[in-house]
């Protein structure tokens, strides 16, 4: 993030980092520009909410990846596997608990979903830990091998999903009370999208607070800027990194559950497919920057939704065009991390 809090006991106020505003303005400008193009206000609202929901889900999946990269210079190409595993783990809870899912009670629906998410995050977190230990640890500092080995890890994980859950797609219906739409004025907004936006905002806020208001967050941010210095000051950055890796994997699992419910069908390759978007997002945001990742995710999703409505053929390459445009403007991404 670009704002830093000065330490409490400092005599004089430490100079604050100036907030870098232009990237923040891109989003509202984009949304406003789209309004006359789309034409009708209700459609625009629907599209915008859909875009925000999708963006939040992508952000949840991408945030862990960008932090891991920022902190330890490891880009995990197998991150998508956690997304798939998270979604598939959720079926272990959601399918046997069909009764709770179909009951017309928000409480039962929510508790089934909460249980599923908790289990998914637990499993993907544990998997992340194992992944870090077995796959990533031996290849720190060797980019080429990292890419190859995490890619290999992803193949194995995808195939293991096939082994455990079988080769077929699994349908995953939404809980009863989250289905349908809410009418806001004339605009129809799917309930589930609002929930996704809410969850995304909660995750972002929690992450923001942890990173900016806690000791751990301070260490993580310091580690992103200069890992060696943090180590020299006596903190075990290795342990910190494992923690971030596990948390990032668990978030990918959460994103996987949300994404799976959004798609309503699960395939083992869903994680790998979404990784393309995730990579674009973290490149746009600036590798290693959580704030940039958040804005990048919303941008990508909004652009995808608007162009999908306005010019479906262009929508297929809209992400690439967006990435090219952003990189021409800021070659290091929206919020470049100082070290790189």
């Amino acid at each position, binding site marked *: 993030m670009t704002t830093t809090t000065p330490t409490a006991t400092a005599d004089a106020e430490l100079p604050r980092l100036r907030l870098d505003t232009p990237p923040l303005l891109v989003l509202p400008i984009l949304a406003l520009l789209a309004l006359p193009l789309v034409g009708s206000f209700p459609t625009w609202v629907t599209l915008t909410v859909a875009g925000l929901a999708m963006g939040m889900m992508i952000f949840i999946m991408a945030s862990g990846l960008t932090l891991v990269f920022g902190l330890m210079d490891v880009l995990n190409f197998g991150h998508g596997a956690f997304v798939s595993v998270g979604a598939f783990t959720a079926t272990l809870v959601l399918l046997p608990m069909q009764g709770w899912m179909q009951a017309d009670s928000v409480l039962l629906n929510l508790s089934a979903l909460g249980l599923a998410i908790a289990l998914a995050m637990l499993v993907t977190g544990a998997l992340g830990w194992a992944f870090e230990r077995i796959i990533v640890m031996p290849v720190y500092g060797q980019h080429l091998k990292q890419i190859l080995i995490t890619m290999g890890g992803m193949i194995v994980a995808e195939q293991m999903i096939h082994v455990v859950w079988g080769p077929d797609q699994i349908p995953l219906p939404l809980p009863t009370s989250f289905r349908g739409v809410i009418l806001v004025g004339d605009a129809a907004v799917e309930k589930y999208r609002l929930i996704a936006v809410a969850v995304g905002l909660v995750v972002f806020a929690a992450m923001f607070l942890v990173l900016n208001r806690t000791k751990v967050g301070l260490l993580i941010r310091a580690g992103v800027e200069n890992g060696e210095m943090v180590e020299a000051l006596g903190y075990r950055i290795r342990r910190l990194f494992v923690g971030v890796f596990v948390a990032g994997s668990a978030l990918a699992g959460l994103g996987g559950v949300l994404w799976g419910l959004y798609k309503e069908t699960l395939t083992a390759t869903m994680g790998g497919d979404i990784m*393309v978007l995730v*990579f674009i997002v973290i490149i746009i945001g600036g590798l290693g920057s959580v704030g940039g990742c958040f804005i990048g995710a919303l941008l990508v999703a909004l652009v995808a939704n608007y162009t999908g409505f306005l010019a479906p053929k262009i929508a297929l390459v809209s992400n690439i065009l967006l990435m090219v445009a952003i990189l021409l403007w800021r070659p290091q991404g929206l919020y470049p991390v100082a070290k790189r």
Partner: protein
Amino acid sequence: MMLHRLLSGDFPRSRILALALLAIVAALALAPFLFPGARALNVAATICVFVVLVASYDLLLGYTGIVSFAHTMFYGIGAYGIGLTLHSVGPTWGAVFMGLTIALLLSLALALVIGLFSLRVKAIFYAMITLAVASAFAVLASQLSDFTGGEDGRTFGVPELLRPGFRLVEAEVFGTAINGKLITYYLVFFSALALFLLLLRVVNSPFGRVLQAIRENDFRAEALGYRTVVYRTLANCLSAVVATLAGALMALWLRYAGPQTTLSFTIMMDILLIVVIGGMGTLYGAVVGAALFILAQNYLQALMKQGSDALVAVPLLANLLHPDRWLLWLGVLFVLSVYFFPTGIVGKLRNLKRS
């Protein structure tokens, strides 16, 4: 002496490897006579094409240290270039060359743009950008169905000479009919051989040495006065061009161009697996790796089926050995080889001799 010229002075440097290579080349050269049957010939042709495809990828990954996920894109451009022109213009040699030219130009332009755009920065950045571009290209190819035939792809006729119905001589030679299929096979085989030797020439030239220097330490290479961006981009373009040619050969052989056979991410994974298992940074690895891999892909699955059937009582184990899960085992093999033999089979064989 002639052998020296032919192999550009880059000998296998291991007796077992040399024997294996000789066996593979001999088997491929005589495949139509040794292994009758459409399936065996198809396997042989696929091996030929993959040797070239993988060798061109190794030029990037093994020699220059660039990880690209867009190699299948160039492969696909080659296949679609041939496929779409032959489909719309008709089965003439003119159309073949026209399609090839268009495909080569398109590949070259794309490789140049992507290269200049993203090769300035780190390997990891390039890997992500190529992944994004390649997947967008694959989606585009399957969505523009009026033009590309969508998911079904395009089947097309080939020039008279290459059709299975065509007979060069009426008589059979060693019990094999000399028909268009055979001619196509030899077209594929000799083109593949020529391209492979060309790549061998490239990696053993001063240009190839610079690439290896960049792989080892790009900062130092830059300090010695080599413009690393230029060399990386050139390597990228060269590799893209060869991949395009490989795609064109594959399209001519299959008489079909579609997303599953050329653009899919599975093929990209196959290429990665072959390069790593065969041996990064040595083109002979491509030959050994591709031969083993394609053979495994076609015949190992039958073996796994037997194992799966035998273990049908044990639920999870039977699934593990299911023929569709062969990629699982290759993935494990892949991870293990990145750790334990980063130089792959070829490196292992060469070390055997030394120790």
